[in-house]
C-alpha cells in the first residue's frame, strides 16, 4: 500500500514532464501564418511572401536589430515594445534616435496582415514598403536603406540566415522587407477573452456587465471600431482639436481637402497596454477618451458624420454605460499576445 504513494508521485512527475514536453513541442513546431477562426481573410499577399520558420526568425532578428538605425542605438522594438502590445507605452509621440521626438504616437505592430493602409496619416499601402518610413525618418532611425543593407551584408551572422530564409546569402531590399513582414504579420492578437467567447472556446463567456457593454459597444462604437479587428481600417476625423503643429492627417499624403484631419481608425484591442491614446497620444487614459467623445468633439473640417448626428456632436454615453463599455473593452486585452515568447527578442 505504501508503494501507491510513490507511484502517485511518480505519475504526477511523469505527467508534469509530459506537459512540459508538449509546450516545448509546440514551440518547436512552427505553424506559419494562421488566420484566427474569427478573423476575415487577410489582406496581405501571403502568396508572394509565405511565412517560413527561417523567414520569420530572420524578420524577428531584424526587428530587434539596432543596425537599422544610423548610430546603431534604436531597433524597431525600441518604439514597438511587446509588453506594451508593440507600442511605446508612456510616450505621447515616438521617442527616436538621439532623443529626438516624432510627431505621432507609435502605433501597435498588431494584426497588420489585415491592414490595407499604414501610418496614422496613410501614405503607405504595402507592408513590405512600410519599414522604409521609420528607418529614414529623421526623428526615428535616421538611416538610409542602402546603409542598413550594407551593415547587414558585413555582419556574418546574417549571411546564413538570409540563405536559410531565401536560398542564398544575397541581401536585397526585397528580402529584407519580406523578412520583416513575415515577423510583423505573425504579431497576431486574437486570444483575448472576447476572441475566446466568439470562438466558443472552453466555455468562455462574458459576464453580465461585459455583455451589456458589448451591446452598447455595437450600438455606439462598432461602426468605426468594427469587429473582430476593432477598426474598419478607414481614415476618419473623430473631432479632435487640431494639435499645435496642425497635423492634418491623411491630407498630408493625398492633399485632398476632404481628407483634412482624418486619421486611421485605431484598433481597440489591448487598450490596457497601449496608453496614451490618439495619433498624438494626447489622452493619457480611457477616461479622457470618453470625455472627448461625450463632451469635447470639435466641429472641425470633415468631422465624421457618425459623430454629428442630428446636429448633436459626439456620442451620448452616461456613466452607467461607460462602466459597462469599460468592462467590455477589458475583454479585448490579450495577455497571451504580450507574453508570446515567439515574438520576443531572443
Amino acid at each position, binding site marked *: 500500500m505504501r508503494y501507491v504513494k510513490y507511484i502517485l508521485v511518480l505519475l504526477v512527475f511523469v505527467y508534469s514532464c509530459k506537459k512540459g514536453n508538449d509546450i516545448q513541442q509546440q514551440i518547436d513546431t512552427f505553424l506559419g501564418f494562421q488566420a484566427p477562426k474569427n478573423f476575415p481573410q487577410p489582406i496581405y*499577399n501571403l502568396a*508572394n511572401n509565405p511565412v517560413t520558420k527561417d523567414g520569420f526568425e530572420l524578420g524577428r532578428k531584424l526587428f530587434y536589430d539596432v543596425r537599422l538605425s544610423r548610430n546603431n542605438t534604436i531597433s524597431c522594438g525600441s518604439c514597438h515594445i511587446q509588453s506594451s502590445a508593440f507600442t511605446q507605452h508612456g510616450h505621447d509621440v515616438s521617442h527616436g534616435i538621439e532623443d529626438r521626438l516624432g510627431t505621432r504616437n507609435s502605433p501597435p505592430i498588431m494584426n497588420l496582415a489585415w491592414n490595407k493602409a499604414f*501610418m496614422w496619416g496613410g*501614405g*503607405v*499601402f*504595402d507592408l*513590405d*514598403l512600410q519599414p*522604409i*518610413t521609420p*528607418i*529614414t*525618418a529623421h526623428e526615428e532611425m535616421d*538611416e*538610409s*536603406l*542602402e*546603409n*542598413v*543593407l550594407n551593415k547587414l551584408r558585413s555582419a556574418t551572422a546574417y549571411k546564413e540566415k538570409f540563405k536559410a530564409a531565401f536560398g542564398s546569402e544575397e541581401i*536585397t*531590399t*526585397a528580402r529584407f*522587407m*519580406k523578412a520583416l513582414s513575415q515577423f510583423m504579420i505573425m504579431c497576431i492578437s486574437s486570444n483575448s477573452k472576447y476572441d475566446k467567447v466568439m470562438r466558443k472556446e472552453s466555455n468562455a463567456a462574458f459576464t453580465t456587465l461585459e455583455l451589456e457593454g458589448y451591446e452598447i459597444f455595437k450600438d455606439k462604437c462598432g461602426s468605426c471600431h468594427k469587429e473582430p479587428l476593432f477598426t474598419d481600417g478607414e481614415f476618419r476625423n473623430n473631432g479632435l482639436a487640431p494639435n499645435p503643429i496642425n497635423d492634418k492627417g491623411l491630407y498630408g*499624403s*493625398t*492633399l*485632398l481637402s476632404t481628407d483634412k484631419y482624418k486619421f486611421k481608425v485605431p484598433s481597440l484591442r489591448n487598450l490596457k497596454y497601449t496608453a496614451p491614446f490618439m495619433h498624438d497620444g494626447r489622452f493619457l487614459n480611457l477616461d479622457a477618451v470618453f470625455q472627448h467623445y461625450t463632451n469635447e468633439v470639435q466641429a472641425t473640417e470633415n468631422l465624421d458624420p457618425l459623430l454629428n448626428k442630428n446636429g448633436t456632436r459626439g456620442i451620448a454615453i452616461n456613466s452607467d454605460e461607460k462602466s459597462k463599455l469599460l468592462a467590455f473593452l477589458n475583454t479585448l486585452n490579450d495577455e497571451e499576445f504580450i507574453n508570446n515568447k515567439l515574438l520576443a527578442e531572443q
Partner: protein
Amino acid sequence: MKRNILYLVTILILFLISCSKKNEPTPDFEEENLAPLSIEFDNIVGGRTLTFNNAAVPYTNAKGEAFTISMIQYFISNVEVTTTSGQKYTVKQDSSYFLIKGSDRGTRFAKVKVPEGDYSKLTFIVGVDSLRSTMPVDKRTGVLDPASGGSMESGGMYWGWNSGYIFFRLEGNSNVVTDDQQGDPTGKKQFKYHIGFFGGYDVPTINNIRKITVDLNEAGIARVRKDRQSNIHLFVDLMKVFNGKNTFSIKENPNVMFGEFSSTIANNFSGLFTHDHTEN
C-alpha cells in the same frame, strides 16, 4: 569614247547613290529582330552647358534671378518608338526604367532594344508609371530599388513616408532664397524641387507623371540596325523648368515637393526636351 565616259560616269553615280544611307532599304518591322538604340539626355541650361555650382558665373532665369545647380536627377521610363510608316514599338517593361543623373555622365544614355527600322517619333515618361509605382517590392530592382541612391541627402529618389518615387529632382542655390522657414533656414540659400506623385493608390491624387513626345523628322530620324549604334541626342534644357509654360520665381517657390505647385512645375517638363540630332 565620249559615250564610254558617259557610261562610266553614270555607273559611278549610280554606285555612289546606292552607297548613300538614304537609299538603304528599310528592314521589315519584326518585333523579334531587336537592335540597339540609345537616347542621350544631354543636360543644358539655356544657351550654356551644365556646370555644377558655377557661382562665379551663375545662370539667370526669366525672372532675373541668378542661380546655380547642385543636383539634377530624373527618371525616364516607358520608352516607345514609332517608325516612319507608323509602326509603334514599346520597349519591354523590365528594361525601360532609367535614372539620369547629371553628376554621372555614364547615366546620360537610356539604352534600349527596338526592332530594326527607321524611327521618326520617340515617346517616354518623365517619372515612374503608376503601375510600377504600386508593384510589390520584388519588382523594384536596379534604379527602382528604394535602397539605391542612399539617403535623401546623397541623392535618394524614393519617398518612404508616401510610398513613391521622386520623378524629377533639381537642387541648387540662389541668393534670392530667404533664410526663413519658407526658404532655407540653414542659410545656405538652397532651392529644392522634388517632383513626384503618381496619382494615388486607391483615391486619385496629384499625378505628376508626364509623357513626352519628340518628333525626330526635322533633326534626323533614327535608323536602327543591328550592326551599329543609333543614338538620339536630346537636349534637356533645365532653364525651361523656370521658364517653361509656367514661368515662376525661385524666391517665391524655393521648395517644391508635395503640393499643388509641383504640378505647375511638372507641366513645364514637356518644354525641356528638344531633339538636337541623331547619330546613326
